[in-house]
């Protein structure tokens, strides 16, 4: 007898650790009841029992399926409750859903990653995936911007990447404090500093909508073609199954057709930056 899967039912995952990343951002470490394989860039629906559910892209390595890390910015009711959870709590997860980054097509290429704010969460997962195949890659450059130095998440990541062969990582802040010695300016300003062979490159952009928009415009000015730019789109995915309609972006269901799109796939829709 075929046992049908109930597509709405979450599996349980135990919260085993909570890491403070910045005043507004925490990483929840989860151990699912069964292994939970996912592709980098895919997302999950994470729920607090009886409270609510929200979509997140795991920030951990897709090579590890026994444990998941989800980096969460406190922005509303559900994320506020998630920030108050203590290790030992059971959470619910559904997924993984959607289309992630096509890492297998990045072989032989130089990869430019432009990130802002909490957008570094999916990017960290991508970086783990890229590190695992670095022999096949030419170069990986990360340009990341946060509002202030204290808003920057995964601070040790930058030194680690800069000491990893083929990887370069740059940081900037919108507003410096007294201790900050690095660049000041929006994330796209870092693009002036880098050397990259655009013809043999792909660019990945993940961050707040305004950064996605101006990041894409800047990449196009640099000479990137529409199909070389990968955007991770943010919408209010409620079901994750291409049914509930909340994440419709033109003809696409972001949950199923995305969340990763090339700019070429979505540029005809003037409302993508809203």
């Amino acid at each position: 007898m075929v046992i049908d899967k109930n597509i709405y039912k979450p599996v349980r995952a135990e919260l085993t650790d909570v890491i403070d990343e910045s005043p507004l951002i925490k990483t929840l470490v989860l151990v699912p009841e069964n292994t939970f394989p996912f592709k980098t860039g895919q997302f999950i629906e994470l729920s607090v029992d009886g409270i609510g559910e929200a979509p997140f892209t795991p920030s951990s390595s897709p090579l590890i399926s026994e444990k998941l890390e989800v980096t969460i910015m406190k922005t509303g009711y559900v994320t506020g409750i998630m920030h108050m959870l203590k290790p030992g709590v059971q959470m619910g997860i559904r997924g993984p859903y959607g289309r992630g980054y096509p890492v297998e097509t990045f072989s032989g290429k130089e990869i430019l990653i432009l990130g802002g704010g909490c957008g570094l969460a999916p990017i960290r997962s991508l970086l783990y995936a890229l590190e695992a195949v670095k022999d096949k890659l030419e170069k990986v450059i990360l340009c990341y911007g946060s509002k202030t130095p204290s808003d920057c998440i995964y601070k040790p990541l930058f030194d680690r990447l800069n000491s990893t062969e083929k990887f370069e990582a740059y940081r900037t802040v919108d507003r410096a404090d007294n201790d900050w010695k690095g660049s000041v300016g929006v994330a796209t300003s870092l693009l002036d500093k880098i050397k990259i062979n655009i013809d043999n490159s792909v660019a990945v952009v993940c961050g707040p909508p305004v950064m996605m928009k101006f990041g894409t415009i800047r990449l196009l000015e640099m000479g990137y073609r529409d199909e070389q730019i990968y955007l991770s789109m943010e919408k209010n995915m409620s079901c994750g199954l291409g049914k509930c309609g909340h994440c419709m972006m033109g003809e696409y269901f972001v949950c199923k057709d995305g969340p990763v799109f090339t700019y070429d796939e979505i540029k005809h829709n003037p409302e993508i930056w809203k």
Partner: protein
Amino acid sequence: MQYKCINKEAWDNTLDHLLLSFSIFASVENEFGLEYESIKPADISRISYNKPKPATSLKSFFLPIKENVTSERFLEKPRIIIGIPNCDIQGLSLIDEIYLDKEFNDIYYRNRRENTLLISTDCIGIQEHCHCLSHNIRPFSTQNADLALIHLDGLIIFRVITRKGEDFLDKIPDVLSEKNNSIIEEIEKVHSSTEALLKESKKDLPDYESSGKLVAKSNEKLWKKYSENCVSCGACTTICPTCTCFLLIDKPGFEKVKQMDACQYPGFERVAGGEDALFELHNRFKNRYMCKYVWRPEKFSSQACTGCGRCIEACIGKINKNELLVELENSL
């Protein structure tokens, strides 16, 4: 197309007998008009045939307003729904594409679909806002229902559409094959006269495909004008036979309740950071038209507007979708 028939009296007796093993729902005329109602033996004579469109759409049988989608409950009795106009049958076809897709199959929806026999009715005559034909949908079913029927001269005459429909009729002893050409000609005449009424009443209305092209080219002024009287009540989406958007609500024990939702409600697309692509009323209002006429057609083979006209009837702001489409056509 295979025709079968049964004497109306024998059909009523058959329904009485079928009520022992099926739940039967049918289009019934009450003081407010037509409505799908649960049928008990005393109601059989009240079933309305040949009439267009109950007030609410067929989707409510398959997508309840609110349901728990994590606790296991399935239909106890198979169902028969009688008197469904073709606009509703075609609307269900889009919902099938969404809920029965190969990757994510909704087990509750599928259970309801598999346990329901759909008996469509041919429409004789039209209601004020009926415009199926201008949207390329005819006022009688030849696909997607299991059977289609028409009540003529004391006979219930069926068109057999699916194997499930044929098997159902095979079990009814009084059902005979109908090969009388004059009756079939009579049915075709009825179809033609209903289609003539539809053509005449909506002759200015662009067809479904042209409507899509017009909506895609439209400007903001039009949406602002027509949304002036919109109060975001969501009546148009609730009543629509193809609108299926919902929200998942969490309940203790990791249970999920699926509740019908609407892009017309404020906050439908709001994301965590506060951005909301549909914040402005005219954008929400336009979204429904873009969804029905531009986006769904790119993704699905079934139409997202079947021309039933219920959204026009339900609108408390008296917004008339068809007037909007005609104005759009005239302005471009």
